[in-house]
């Protein structure tokens, strides 16, 4: 692209923001932000920002791990529902229905309080190497969020696997590919491309579910803001900052996924 074209492109982009009513709205928003910065209390920030960073790191870490594990679990779930025999597809369908039909908060409490109260009754669990982990809260949070992501994404992957044209798979078989190779080279990549737009939405939804882990005493960014609220008796400031943080993360996620989506050939199937 020539320099002139770049300049025109940039001018077109800038003009979207420079319409008169938008300028007024942006000024009003800036004024609101400045009011918030000057008239609200932010003196607690230096004391808590280190804790906040640790909490933020923990939130992001839980998000990344549960999305990765959940997706790994969603692939077999989707595959079993799309093309598996009934003794695979029926349990997979039941799993997805149960996960999607009950609130995540309830699943989380079921695992943490329910299973967590059962485990200590068995001495062989208390003596096993797993016990130091089972006594903490985060493994329950990771398991619950992973199952939730797998349940929702499994349904998406079912549609994606079923949507890959049969001709593609038949052609692969005609080339003499083994079943595993067909899956790895043809079926999974094409299904993944189909599922990618919804994957963005699911990841944002997953981000918005992470604050629930604070209710089972995992100290994520939401728990830090609750602690600030308890310590300083401030209602709005920590919550507003928290909302801003989540909005920023959402923006970054959407941007990154749109970049990945842009790299993928548009016409498929």
């Amino acid at each position, binding site marked *: 692209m020539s320099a002139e074209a770049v300049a025109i492109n940039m001018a077109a982009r800038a003009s979207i923001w420079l319409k008169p009513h938008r300028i007024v709205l942006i000024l009003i928003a800036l004024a609101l932000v400045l009011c918030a910065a000057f008239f609200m209390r932010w003196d607690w920030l230096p004391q808590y920002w280190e804790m906040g960073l640790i909490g933020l790191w923990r939130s992001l870490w839980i998000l990344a791990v549960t999305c990765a594990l959940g997706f790994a679990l969603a692939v077999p779930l989707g595959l079993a529902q799309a093309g598996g025999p009934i003794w695979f597809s029926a349990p997979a369908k039941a799993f997805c229905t149960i996960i999607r039909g009950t*609130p*995540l908060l309830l699943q989380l409490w*079921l695992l943490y309080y329910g299973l967590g109260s059962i485990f200590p009754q068995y001495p062989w669990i208390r003596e096993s190497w797993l016990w130091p982990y089972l006594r903490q809260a985060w493994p329950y949070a990771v398991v619950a969020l992973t199952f939730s992501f797998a349940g929702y994404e499994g349904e998406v992957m079912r549609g994606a696997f079923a949507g890959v044209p049969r001709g593609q798979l038949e052609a692969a078989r005609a080339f003499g590919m083994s079943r595993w190779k067909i899956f790895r080279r043809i079926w999974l990549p094409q299904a993944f491309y189909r599922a990618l737009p919804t994957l963005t939405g699911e990841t944002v939804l997953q981000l918005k579910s992470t604050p629930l882990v604070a209710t089972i005493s995992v100290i994520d960014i939401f728990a830090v803001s609750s602690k600030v609220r308890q310590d300083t008796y401030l209602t709005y400031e920590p919550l507003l900052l928290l909302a801003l943080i989540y909005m920023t993360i959402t923006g970054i996620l959407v941007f990154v996924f749109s970049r990945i989506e842009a790299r993928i050939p548009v016409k498929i199937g």
Partner: protein
Amino acid sequence: MELLSPVAPGWGGTLLVGLLHSIEIAVGATCLGLMIGTAGAFGKLYGGPVTRDLLAVYTTIVRAVPELVLILLLYYAGTDLINQMLTAIGYSRVDISGLAAGIFVLGFVQGAYSTEVIRGAILAIPQGQIEAARAYGMSPGLMLRRITLPAMLPFAIPGLANLWLIATKDTALLAVVGFFELTLATRQAAGVTKAYLLFYLAAGALYLALTLFSNLIIGRVEAWSRRGMPSVKEAR
């Protein structure tokens, strides 16, 4: 098992009352969300530039911030605002009922999502139908009632049904602000009796039953809203 019996020594009655409160909130929030969503969708499509931008800000922010944070923010901000307004015009402070606050908060969140669903559904109506309505000289109100709303319904029902299911599950979040609904009732019952697993499984079964029952109804409603349209399967 006798812990689940609906009469006094058992906690089944408590759970059922909680379920009733959950359903009340979900119904209220969905109705409020539908009203906000319809108004918002029309504002986004036919409103002036300022209305459109403000609605875009509303839907973007509400959909980007976790429901739990929004619930806390709106719950405190909403009750605070109403009380300040009341004291400003000379009334004494009131306690906002948890039911009203819950419906307002969840309805506000649902409104953002249903705005997008209804906007998409209106855009999916074949343009000719609206042009034909204009050509007949229908007023905007009549066109809305006779053409736009019924014609968009088949496109909007799947999305709105999803929102209803999300609303029933989002009521669980109100447990965090201390509203007595199914999840909090479960927690109390489990805390008293120490039978955690039993009560959480029972509550899960109740939520699941609600979802499956809703799915049945939704299937009927969808078939009704599609009456007279060619089936998708035949079209292929």
